[in-house]
């Protein structure tokens, strides 16, 4: 299994940002993304997913390190201050490196 190295960027943030983030990610060079619904708690309190204003999304992007850095810089600049958001990186192996 000769898996190539990539970064998995996981973003957990407010559902209101879904459309904007999707556009940002593609503009920043990601070849794809995956989104699922989530709820949670953090420094901005409980987000319980009962209704729109209170639900989270969990966004995953597999990409190379350079794009991961661009994504994190962009999010830090535009969203970190005002939105409930966390972001973390994981090292992952992929099989079809040309896809990511």
């Amino acid at each position: 299994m000769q898996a190539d190295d990539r970064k998995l960027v996981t973003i957990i943030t407010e559902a209101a940002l879904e459309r904007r983030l999707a556009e940002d990610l593609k503009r920043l060079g990601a070849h794809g993304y995956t989104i699922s619904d989530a709820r949670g708690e953090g420094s901005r309190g409980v987000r319980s997913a009962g209704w729109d204003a209170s639900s989270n999304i969990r966004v995953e992007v597999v990409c190379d390190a350079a794009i991961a850095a661009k994504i994190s810089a962009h999010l830090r600049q535009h969203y970190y201050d005002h939105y409930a958001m966390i972001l973390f990186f994981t090292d992952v192996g992929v099989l079809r490196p040309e896809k990511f």
Partner: protein
Amino acid sequence: MSGIDPIVLFFLLGLVAGLGRSDLRLPGSIYEFLSVILLLAIGLKGGAELAKQSLGDLLPQMLAVILMGLLLPLVAYPLLRRLGRLRRADAASIAAHYGSVSVGTYAVAVAWLVAREIPYEEYMPLMLVLLEMPAIVVGILLARGVSADTKWKELGHEVFLGKSIVLLVGGLLIGWVAGPEALEPVGGLFFGLFHGVLALFLLEMGLVAAGQVGSLRRHGLFLVAFGILFPLFGALVGGGLGLLLGFSTGGMMLLAVLAASASYIAVPAAMRLALPEANPTLSLTASLGVTFPFNILVGIPLYYGLAEQLRQLGG
């Protein structure tokens, strides 16, 4: 009539269950389903009624109502800044919430009138739609000034194509084009179930409102005072405008309710994107944690009394 509307009791049930930390919770998709039905039903009903009116005759009323939507946030803003000492963005955002309207509150008020067989101008959903948006624009201008680098085009897209507007306006248009008779077959869902769906919706809103109590405690008395007093002022303005425009007492009351209510669907979403630096907890605490329960539990009968009073003074 025992005098206690069961749909209000559903709201109380949600509130009590939420405050007691019950694990009762409606799934998010069900909340969306219920609000889609409510928004479409309100739109359809208003549209079917519009079909009977000449839009030309309604124009003065429409303009007056839009004007009210522009002015209400301009009154709220200085109060929030001076008395509440809120930051500019927060004051502007809350002002926008209170200039706009709450569809849930409107629905409960209509149910209240219907249960008492009090007539009203049934094209009122048109006014509801007209009041949704102007306050958003005013709020953004208050926060950013006119020279703002706000992306108006993008924002216009968000606001006009946000789901609550699309469903309300879509419902209005469908109702208008199809007319009352052709709507009958879909009435089983949209009209026959209206009260029941509203009851479940209020149950969920009770749970949501209960979740705001924590932040209520943190943000002190001012939000509570504002969340009760500004609606009273709004009701006076709305009721008075209704009188001027020659509405029935029921219609005056509904206009009072619209002016007294604060948005918690369309405006929060728009503010999140247009004024991200405004703290959403403040505006939602006021609109959902204070004003919505106040209007549902106390305000609606009060505003009807007010409308009757105004009628006598005016008439």
